[in-house]
């Protein structure tokens, strides 16, 4: 299975104007709910917030990977939001977050290809050049291309 099956163009949002982590979670949940990847919006918001409370998912240079594994999620999905302003996320380097890559996983998922793909998304972010390409991306297609060139 290719990356495009998991990362959908309509799940990529650029130049957003979110102002807080709570708004970002709300937005991710809204997208998941509307696209049918999650049964309820509230469960997703709660799941993301709960994971965040354990330890930050903020990475460095403005990237964050909020994630949740829930019963209410019906389809493994990646939701990408690029925000105009930095959002406080308590990230590893304390930088505000502008690039959110949310990973949503159904509870039933175990040992499947989806999980492998999702872990590749996390791995990719560790690479400086991948991060640069994502930051420079100006369209959803740019972002999709970056992902598919790093994840096979």
């Amino acid at each position: 299975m290719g990356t495009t099956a998991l990362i959908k163009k309509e799940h990529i949002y650029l130049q957003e104007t979110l102002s807080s982590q709570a708004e970002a979670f709300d937005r991710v949940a809204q997208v998941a709910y509307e696209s049918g990847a999650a049964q309820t919006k509230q469960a997703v918001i709660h799941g993301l917030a709960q994971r965040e409370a354990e330890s930050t998912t903020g990475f460095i240079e403005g990237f964050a990977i909020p994630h949740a594994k829930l019963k209410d999620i019906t389809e493994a999905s990646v939701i990408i939001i690029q925000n105009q302003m930095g959002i406080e996320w308590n990230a590893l380097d304390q930088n505000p977050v502008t690039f959110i890559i949310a990973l949503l996983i159904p509870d039933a998922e175990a040992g499947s290809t989806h999980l492998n793909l999702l872990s590749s998304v996390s791995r990719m972010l560790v690479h400086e050049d991948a991060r640069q390409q994502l930051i420079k991306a100006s369209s959803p297609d740019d972002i999709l291309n970056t992902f598919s060139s790093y994840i096979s």
Partner: protein
Amino acid sequence: MKKFKIIAATGCPTGIAHTFMAEEALKQAAAKLGVEIKVETHGQIGVQNELSPEDIKQADGVIVAADKDVGAERFAGKRVLDVPVARGIRDAESLIRALLNGEAPIYREQTAAKTEDELQTGEAASIGRKIYKHLMNGVSHMLPFVVGGGVLIALSFLFGIHSADPEHPSYNAFAELLNKTGAFGFQLMVPILSAYIAASMAKRPGLIVGFIGGMIASTGGAGFLGGIVSGFLAGLIIYGLSYALKKMPQSLEGLKAIFLYPVIGIFLIGAVMFFLVEPMTAINEGMKDFLADFQGANPVILGLIIGCMSAFDMGGPVNKAAYVTGTALLAEGNQYFMAGVSAACITPPLVIAFATLLFRKYFSQQDRNAGLVNFILGATHITEGAIPFAAKKPIPVIPILMIGSSISAILTYSFAVQVPAPHGGFLVLPVVTGAFQWVLSIIIGSLIGAFLYGFYQKRTYEKQKG
């Protein structure tokens, strides 16, 4: 030259993102520094890229970057850096450099012997982390005993404060069952704490010796502080024994586990602990005498002393001195003194309960749940509810509880509240003279304590993130 070989294991509770970011960061750093690396990941998918015994044997150094158990005991005898997963992501390069420079301690067996050196070379942080890990293992195993036992005892009070006493008119057989069963939970509390601290240090041989040490601490009246001491002593005894018995032939390995560790270990912990609990009675008596001189002191001084004593060891010799003096004076008809003691004993669990409620964001889920139970335990004068929290971080939690309890007791004495019952907490309110002032005093003391604890927790939380 042969390439330097590193193995690593990464893991995080959710196992979706950080496990793999740490893996990638370590691989990237290894490539940059020209060392060979194999990384085992403990993710949601399960264990991937598992390290074989051969891998472990050949490795020149090990990095454990995990916030969950990844079976690190496999790496005994290796140079191991044990760090949180976030450091594996952020400091991958410096971790590998540390291994290359031979700065990592050798894991387990020889760790005990190396402890001294490490402390002096600035590795104190990792020692602190280890001690905390052992302590937490004890506390998390103890917690359900405190909750289960405490709630049953609290329920028994609903049948009447003396309903578990067959001699008393309000006797109820079911209340007695609840009360006695709950009491067993409490009796096991200190032994469990001690046993699992020791088990975290020295596996099963530690568990055995820690249990016995905890029993001696518990029955000898040394309270939970005694249990913490006996747990660490038990672990150290097994470290010492394994060092002393190192030269024994391999064929006698089985004899060690089933015979030598238990027999010698239990003997040694007994010898040390009996010596240590010996002065407990003396401390208890001494504190009682000390207290006798202050019975008529002004409310502030008396409240301060009672508050500090009651919250200091929660069931240990110092706390008991205050409590026993209170019941003795009650028998003589002095109901003022007991009011302060009760207030000081009710406060610690309420401090915990309010802190975990008002500062919930900074506490783990487990702590929050246990925190809520503390409302019940506090309201029924079951001070023990606060013990798991105090045991985790004796400093500064115990001093904070002492401040809260002192304020409650000082206010109670200032209002001249009279409490005629030695137990039961708020369930005895109908017979309390000045019930409103009493509850007010306790809530003020508890809230002040809760804010101090909450702010401390917030600072720790933020420091960990930072």
